[in-house]
């Protein structure tokens, strides 16, 4: 069983919600990323989404754009990400790692090489922001045959017919984008999220995780009432940005932000 499926099965049996942090790999420097990943796990991360830096992150707001710029300035490439995951796996064999990014860097090194190296490094899933399932004919089977989950986005604008297609292609979990906008946008509306998740429940057994607009324990707990997991990115990445010139404090900052969300989520599911 893929580590992602394993983790969601455990959470389900415990009646708990998944907490999924996102950080951009190599931000503020490649030497820090593995340490941050372990810190996130200590603070209660169930799955880690590792952002692949890209020069033109069209779906991201300023916070993650700048994170990409910091990482690219340090020359971070996919080969470094694979090294990071490999190193992370030396001491953590259970926490699933998902690579999240744009198609071009993956295509440029070759999709077969990408899938081989990702699987070998210990990656569990891949979310390609600019690749809807209609364009995934080639990469989907390559990932699947290596035990890597293809994770797709569903948006508030997605029609039911499209959602059915996405559910049919999706593996691991569905990433529901809580609002129209880029990452790091306004606060989400949890009632609106609930309305959109209901029809998805009918279509799929995949865990439904919600991202965009989750900034603190309160918003995490709100979403946790209706979703199987919450994804938090910009709220963490902005802490990295604020402390980019003193990276030694960042792990502690990340733990504080994520820890508060973990507590709020667990309190919510226990209630």
């Amino acid at each position, binding site marked *: 069983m893929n580590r992602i499926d394993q983790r969601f099965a455990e959470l389900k049996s415990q009646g708990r919600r998944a907490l999924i942090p996102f950080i951009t790999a190599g931000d503020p420097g490649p030497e820090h990323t593995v340490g941050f990943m372990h810190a996130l796990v200590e603070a209660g991360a169930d799955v880690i989404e590792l952002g692949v830096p890209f020069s033109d992150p069209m*779906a991201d707001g300023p916070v993650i754009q700048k994170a990409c710029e910091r990482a690219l300035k340090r020359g971070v490439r996919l080969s470094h990400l694979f090294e990071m995951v490999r190193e992370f796996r030396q001491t953590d064999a259970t926490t699933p790692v998902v690579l999240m990014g744009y198609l*071009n860097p993956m295509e440029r090194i070759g999709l077969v090489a990408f899938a081989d190296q990702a699987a070998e490094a210990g990656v569990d899933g891949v979310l390609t922001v*600019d690749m*809807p399932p209609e364009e995934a004919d080639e990469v989907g089977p390559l990932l699947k045959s290596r035990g890597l989950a293809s994770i797709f*986005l569903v*948006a508030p*604008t997605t*029609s039911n017919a499209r959602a059915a297609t*996405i559910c049919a292609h999706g593996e691991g979990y569905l990433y529901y984008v809580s609002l*129209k906008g880029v990452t790091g946008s306004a606060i989400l509306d949890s009632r609106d999220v609930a309305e959109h998740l209901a029809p998805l429940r009918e279509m799929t057994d995949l865990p439904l995780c919600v991202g965009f607009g989750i900034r603190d324990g309160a918003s995490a707990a709100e979403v946790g009432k209706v979703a199987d997991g919450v994804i938090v990115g910009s709220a963490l990445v902005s802490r990295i940005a604020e402390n980019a010139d003193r990276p030694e404090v960042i792990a502690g900052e990340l733990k504080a932000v994520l820890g508060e969300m973990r507590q709020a989520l667990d309190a919510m599911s226990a209630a």
Partner: protein
Amino acid sequence: MIDFNPHALLATCEVSFVSKFSDLTRLPDARGHFGPYGGRFVSETLSFALDELEKTYLSLRDDPAFQAEFDYDLAHYVGRPSPLYHAERWSKQLGGAQIWLKREDLNHTGAHKVNNTIGQALLAKKSGKPRVIAETGAGQHGVATATVAARLGLKCDVYMGAADVQRQKLNVYRMRLLGANVIAVESGTRTLKDAMNEALRDWVTNVDDTFYIIGTVAGPHPYPMLVRDFNSVVGREARRQSFEEFGKLPDALIACVGGGSNAMGLFYPFVEDDEVVMYGVEAGGDGVETGRHAAPLASGAPRGVLHGNRTYLMSDEGGQVSDTHSVSAGLDYPGVGPEHALWKDVGRVNYVAANDDAVLEAFRELTHVEGIMPALETAHALAYAKVLAPTMSPDQNIIVNLSGRGDKDILTVAKIDGIEI
């Protein structure tokens, strides 16, 4: 990589056609692919809007009332048809083929860009959206968008790279006079590609009330198709005018290529005329061999995905999009329309590059010899005409798409001359 053999595409002709390129007129396919290029590589939030746009366009494309409205606007607002002008003096000076200029510079707003914005503005009106956005490089597409927005009373925001805002000040102020809000984009390389990133971010946020008017034959499906269709009026007129003016098809067509909309507009109606040789001229910048250029096709850049489509894309070994360089803001773009990418592979069009120096020389030459000041983008096509014409005979004819006028570039050229205006 998708295994793609361009000759297999051509070999799939079941019926024998007059042209070996007939298949090229049946693209894109239902998913917006031109062979291995094109497609719809966008984040999920935009899929719905693109589906809607495609549906709207396909329902109107063959609607006589819509076509009539489009044609009326082109005739009475844009001033079409644009003349096919015989540059007799310049032809004689170059000592070879006759050069004919398709005068898109005489259109309202001064470039071919308005053909497309008129069409897309009609789509925006039909879809009832009160706001339009656009990206712009040289500012010509921004001006053309601001113009149609003013006419239809739509709110208009134009994204422009901060570096381009600097080098195209006249067009920036022109857009503001037209009532548009020009937003300088400070991210990335601060040029056209970054303007497009920011426009896409705006659209994903405001997709309910906003129509995105893309200015070139790139972007996610259906944009490459509909921008091509709206600009094809250029080639249809030129084809007809060729018979009127010199009684036969032209021997060669030349147009500059950034994203490739003016080239597509001129070339597309000639695609099945095998005897018409076509040249797309990209921005050679300091020279393709220096790496400081914006010529993905001529330099043979790798295949890549940016701004919603797969195409030839200048990127480094790690897949990061490369910085580009060109004296002209409008061609300063690392990718190119997907249909051009296919046309390169199947050998329908020859893609070449003109360097900044040759471009400036052609700019000055046409201005002096014919009294027509071209845009710096257009001057790329003229630079190649200077190379090609002398190799041909005086009874042969070349059509150059004079895609835009050069008033906007006066400050840039003055600066190169060391003159402060």
